[in-house]
């Protein structure tokens, strides 16, 4: 895997040297290095929310049966082997949320960054194979992980789930003509660590007579989850496909411990061999497992219609609130004076699985010798998996109606300067979140009833280079 990866990176760099400027080659080199460091890729929450690549995003995300470029790394890895040439996608995507509770903007952070993808077909003997890699690199933070108070209202779908890097790599192969399979491993890392202090704490003149030894142990533990897909072309105009993405959750496990005595040197300690420990466990960046069945039909030579139905397992969503376990030992006498609350258990969020239908239409409006123009539109409906928030929790979410439009220009080969086709795709999308009311059972609830609504505006531009 690594040898093939290095070979492909080297070939890509040589090819790029002919036409790409120096800085672009350098960026590409860095991406190859980064993708080599993370051979098992990560599933994307930003791609899950906003799509990957402007063509697929313009089609409402109904791309499982039609993706044959770098976007196949997200929508269906089996599509990587359907193309014949090496394709490199470079683009930029932005999603700007305008989300309101009780008419006030929650100021949820936008998500924006660079999208880069590779679809590299080849052959091993008579078997057609392909390797793909894709990266969404946020341009303001790589990943943000945070744990909020249980009752604090948060936009559970948009607040923090989209604030992370997305890195994917897949393999695909052709079983027979018209039947393709592909898959990859998702990869992320989580932190697990302890800060420990040991020694003596003086009651007076602490700077001079306290002595503490600290130790910090932190591990970045790898988390992996799979993705797979299949494409079947029973006829020249009909494509059937399916894909599966496994669930993902990032667990944070942090601890703090202090062991020692409290008292001045030479005197009987106030606390002898006491201890205090606090352990926090929480989860963030939940991604449900998803099974997608798709169909695409080229009903006329110019008109392509695609349809996806995705079943997402949101019922596995766990409460993201941190559980804190505190232990304190100050000796028999002082222990009686301290009463620590027991660790709190939280009610299950009660999310439910959902079915997401997506419809995309692509029409070749112009087909000339040197240039072609595609017009695209899409719609998706995503019901909210969150129940009405009637209790203490406040996982704010609404149903989502997603409308998208886009266009793509494909240039034909143009002499030595442009020996292979170049595509430029752009899209604009609006996700409309209609009003949703949350009526509390308890009139004393500190948050109270609230109405949630919003709009998310998405923009993107992707260039596709073929070699």
């Amino acid at each position, binding site marked *: 895997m690594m040898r093939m990866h290095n070979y492909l990176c080297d070939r890509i760099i040589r090819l790029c040297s002919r036409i790409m400027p*120096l*800085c672009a080659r*350098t*960026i590409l*080199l*860095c*991406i190859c*290095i*980064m993708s080599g460091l993370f051979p098992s890729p990560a599933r994307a929450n930003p791609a899950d929310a906003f799509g990957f690549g402007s063509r697929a995003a313009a089609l409402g995300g109904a791309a499982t049966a039609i993706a044959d470029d770098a976007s196949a790394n997200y929508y269906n890895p089996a599509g990587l082997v359907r193309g014949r040439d090496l394709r490199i996608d470079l683009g930029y995507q932005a999603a700007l949320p305008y989300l309101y*509770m*009780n*008419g*006030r*903007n*929650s*100021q*949820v*952070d936008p998500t924006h960054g660079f999208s880069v993808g590779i679809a590299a077909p080849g052959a091993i003997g008579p078997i057609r194979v392909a390797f793909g890699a894709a990266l969404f*690199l*946020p*341009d*303001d*933070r*790589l*990943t*943000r992980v*945070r744990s*909020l108070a249980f009752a*604090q*209202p*948060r*936009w559970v779908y*948009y*607040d*923090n789930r989209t*604030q992370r*890097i997305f890195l994917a790599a897949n393999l695909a192969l052709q079983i027979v003509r018209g039947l393709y399979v592909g898959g990859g491993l998702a990869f992320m890392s989580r932190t697990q660590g302890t800060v420990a202090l040991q020694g003596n704490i003086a009651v007076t003149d602490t700077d001079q007579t306290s002595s503490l030894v600290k130790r910090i142990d932190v591990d970045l533990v790898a988390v992996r989850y799979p993705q797979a897909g299949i494409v079947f072309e029973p006829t020249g105009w009909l494509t059937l496909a399916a894909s599966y993405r496994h669930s993902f959750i990032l667990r944070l496990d942090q601890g703090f411990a202090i062991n020692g005595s409290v008292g001045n040197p030479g005197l009987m300690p106030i606390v002898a061999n006491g201890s205090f420990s606090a352990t926090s466990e929480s989860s963030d960046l939940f991604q449900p497992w998803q099974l997608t069945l798709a169909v695409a039909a080229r009903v006329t030579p110019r008109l392509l219609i695609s349809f996806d139905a995705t079943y997402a397992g949101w019922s596995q969503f766990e409460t993201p609130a941190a559980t804190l376990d505190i232990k304190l030992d100050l000796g028999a006498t002082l222990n009686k004076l301290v009463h620590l609350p027991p660790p709190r258990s939280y009610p299950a969020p009660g999310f439910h699985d959902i079915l997401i239908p997506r419809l995309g239409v692509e029409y070749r409006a112009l087909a000339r010798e040197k240039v072609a123009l595609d017009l695209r539109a899409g719609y998706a409906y995503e019901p909210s998996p969150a129940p009405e928030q009637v209790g203490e929790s406040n996982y704010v979410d609404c149903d989502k109606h997603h409308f998208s439009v886009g266009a793509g220009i494909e240039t034909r080969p143009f002499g030595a300067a442009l020996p292979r086709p170049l595509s430029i795709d752009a899209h604009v999308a609006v996700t409309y979140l209609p009003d949703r*009311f*949350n*009526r509390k059972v*308890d*009139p*004393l*609830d*500190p*948050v*109270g*009833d*609230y*109405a949630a609504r919003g709009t998310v505006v998405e923009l993107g531009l992707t260039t596709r280079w073929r070699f």
Partner: protein
Amino acid sequence: MMRLHKILCVLVAGCGTLAPDGGGATDLPVSGAGPYGKLAPNDAYPFQAPYVLSDAGADLDDPYVLAWGDLLATWVTYTVGHTSEIRHADFFSLETGSTGFIGAIQPAEAWEGNRVAQPAILWTSPWLLFYSGAGGIGYATSPDGHAWTKAPGPALVATADEGAISSPAAILIGDTVRLFYLASDGVRAADARFADLAARAEAPFQRRAGVVIAPGAASWLPSPGRLSARNVLLATGRERYDLFLSGSVDGVRAVGFASSFDGESFAIAAAPFLDPRSPDEWSPTVTAYRAGSLLLFTQQEGQHSAIGAATSP
């Protein structure tokens, strides 16, 4: 050239280290249940925080507050010697201080016994102001919240079971005004048609059976004291009714609240709004203010009582 490659690689790898703090926690919904913090002293204020209303020659008590944008309208019991009247003070904003007191209701009727106090306002058309006097509870109407005309009173007189009644607090449920008041056995309620009150009808109230909040209903309510009430129209379109109550903890007066969706059965908060400690607080009133809530209360300031303020985000 290699150095440029390395520099650019470092720059790409460094993406994501320059982000500002995360968002999504701005202007979150709050119900007014707290937590509250008393207004901190600030040289920019024209008053000595937390006291937003004070008078060197009078005792101020029983505040009631309404808000409209940044504007605040307050009514208080203004006592000098043995005479109490109700006065009104406006604020362009909390921070700019009041524009000064103007008279609202003065004692003039025999049943009032030289004392009108404990204002409770309904911002309706016409405005309604309920108050207590020596002989019961009365009310007045106004077209603008400034010029008041008393109704024949008292509108409500204590029964033999109730002992003395005081501390009116009113909410509007549909076209019915529900008046809560203090009796010897706790907080009770009586209803009147809004139309009758608007017409300044005599004795318009019909008592409701039972006690709404009994002494000891919460650990900080061994004996309920001065209360106020408000309607809250929630973003979901339904109403919530809040009662703000005076209680005590270990002999120190404290203020807290109870709430209801039907105006009949109230859930009482487990703890008061503010930490009960000296100087203690009583006579609370709350209004939504800007993105949070504003609590006014009475507190001793030197020789006299004054009106303090606390805010909740």
